[in-house]
């Protein structure tokens, strides 16, 4: 097989706000705007960003739980947007999802065994014996005792429930797992157990992950590559090590600087970035980050910056740090920090 496992091209999702019966124009939420990336087999791509940046909508679009307004999602070269129901079902086997909340994503009336074998039974009929064998096997894969198959979700701890969610996702032998804030609701010691499980499974089964998270510590630990989203767009996509060593986009920089670090001897120099994330109903013109950006120039207010490839294999959308053409012009406001940036790959 050649080419990436997953290829996302110019993915866009606009949600209309209410019906436009008397109003002339219907306001839309621009949840996802022109998002493109690839995921290779066995790779972990993390998508980070704050509430409302569109990261969860991307997950839903990948699973085609919602239909895109524009763009394509290709799995092994097949566009899932064009598929009819039957074909879509077959393709969904390749891609499974793990959700944030292990309490509301499990049917409280089914036993653990029924929950994790249900996806397979959607495709084929299992005898009772086959079902039990499958459940036992899946439970063992996620580090649970086979006897647990008779328990109800309410009889399990938060960590065990999240293991069930993972076992259910594994039941169809997918190549790709989309995990939307899969460890965010867990205590740190349980979080460590689940992260270890995901790393083990990736190694044993060659799984690829699209891992959506707001926790930069977790992301830095598991990601091969990281996409940073702000207000529906990817503003920076880079190999994990490069991104954390030297963020280029001013928003990435602000995000990394804001994350609390468990080291009391570290002295925090920078003032936190000011302001809040603007509304995706009426996003700022040009670069969406310009009202909060210390580096903003006139052009940032007018033109949406394109993603420009840099020398170290990353892409960045910033007129100042990654200019596509000539010098960006004078700043809109005084900067309050010093910056160093790798050279743009002109």
């Amino acid at each position: 097989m050649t080419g990436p496992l997953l290829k996302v091209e110019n993915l866009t999702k606009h949600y209309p706000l209410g019906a436009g019966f008397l109003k002339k124009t219907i306001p839309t939420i621009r949840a996802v705007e022109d998002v493109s990336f690839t995921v290779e087999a066995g790779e972990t791509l993390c998508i980070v960003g704050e509430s409302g940046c569109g990261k969860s909508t991307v997950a839903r679009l990948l699973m085609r739980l919602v239909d895109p307004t524009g763009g394509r999602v290709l799995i092994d070269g097949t566009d899932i947007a064009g598929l009819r129901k039957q074909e879509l079902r077959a393709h969904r086997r390749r891609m499974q999802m793990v959700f944030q909340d292990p309490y509301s994503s499990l049917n409280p009336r089914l036993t653990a065994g029924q929950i994790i074998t249900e996806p397979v039974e959607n495709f084929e009929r299992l005898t009772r014996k086959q079902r039990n064998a499958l459940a036992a096997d899946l439970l063992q894969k996620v580090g649970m005792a086979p006897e647990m198959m008779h328990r109800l979700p309410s009889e399990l701890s938060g960590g065990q429930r999240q293991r069930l969610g993972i076992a259910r996702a594994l039941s169809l032998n997918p190549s790709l797992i989309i995990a939307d804030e899969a460890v965010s609701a867990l205590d740190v010691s349980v979080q460590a157990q689940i992260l270890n499980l995901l790393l083990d499974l990736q190694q044993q089964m060659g799984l690829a992950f699209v891992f959506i998270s707001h926790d930069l510590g977790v992301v830095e630990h598991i990601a091969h590559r990281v996409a940073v989203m702000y207000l529906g767009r990817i503003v920076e996509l880079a190999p994990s090590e490069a991104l954390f060593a030297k963020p280029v986009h001013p928003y990435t920089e602000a995000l990394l600087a804001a994350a609390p670090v468990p080291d009391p001897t570290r002295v925090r120099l920078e003032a936190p970035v000011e302001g809040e994330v603007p509304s995706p109903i009426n996003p700022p013109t040009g670069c969406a980050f310009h009202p909060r950006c210390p580096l903003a120039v006139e052009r940032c207010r007018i033109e949406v910056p394109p993603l420009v490839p840099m020398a170290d294999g990353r892409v960045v959308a910033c007129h100042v740090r990654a200019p596509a053409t000539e010098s960006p012009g004078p700043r809109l406001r005084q900067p309050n920090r010093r910056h160093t940036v790798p050279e743009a790959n002109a």
Partner: protein
Amino acid sequence: MLMREFAGDDVLLDVRDLETHFYGEESVTRALGGISFQVKKGETVGVVGESGCGKSVTALSILRLLPKLSAKTVGGEVRFHGRDILELSDREMRKIRGDQIAMIFQEPMTSLNPVYTVGHQIAEAVQIHTKASRPVAMAKAEEMLRLVRIADPERRVSNYPHEMSGGMRQRVMIAMALACSPELLIADEPTTALDVTIQAQILRLIVDLKDRMGAAVMFITHDLGVVAETCQRVIVMYAGRIVEQANVVDLFARPAHPYTQGLMRSVPDPRRGRQRRLPEIPGIVPNLREPIVGCSFAPRCPFAIDICREKRPPLRDVGSSHAAACWRAEEVMGA
């Protein structure tokens, strides 16, 4: 036993053997199994631990805000300025709460009243505790909004909570909590529901205002990063008891309790290598409905020996202003 510091003038809050139970249909949960600690004037103390360790119950017990029908503080003292506030009448307690001791909770939307403007709510808090007239209290509300750096405070005082973002609502909660210049601020996961850039702004704000007003802060959180950045001293709780307390630098440099050590190691840290398995704490937290013999962490502890399973270790000094409840603390610190 832990040497009790002389309860001199600088001790603001002195909690002794505080014990709180929750009552279920057929069982009693020992949510707090007798905890003792002090908060000095102007000090920032972090209380950390995982779900169910008793950190929020500690706050509610101090404030006497436990659910009346299902929970009760069954033992101990909470001395505030030397006076046991558990002995006060409800009326006297209401005078202290919101005035000398203020609190901020995790979810600002559920702590604010949706049918009143934020200015009205801050002014109300001011009027309950001072004899200020309505116009004076409203002016104070506007001043507080300016203090917590809400842009356009003249206009924002007449906003309703739903017209504000989560970060702004938490600023309003802080404004309300600080309006009466409390001596102690109890903040229970105040930034957990917020985005990371907003969290950084709110943490900075709390620390700045605390320094300016000289209030002591009890910072309840599950996030070791938040503790490292904001607190001077840290209390670590496990299964309803304090297992370790130390100044923040010592705690992170040389944790003396195996639970603290395990907790710190299970946080991803790129300095220890990416994409590696994280050290896990095996097992799960004990059921507090059952009596626990010995150390409650022993079943999960890599250091556990016979005595740990038989006798509960007392909190004892293991260094200057560093105490741990572990029979083998010295070895843990060396590990």
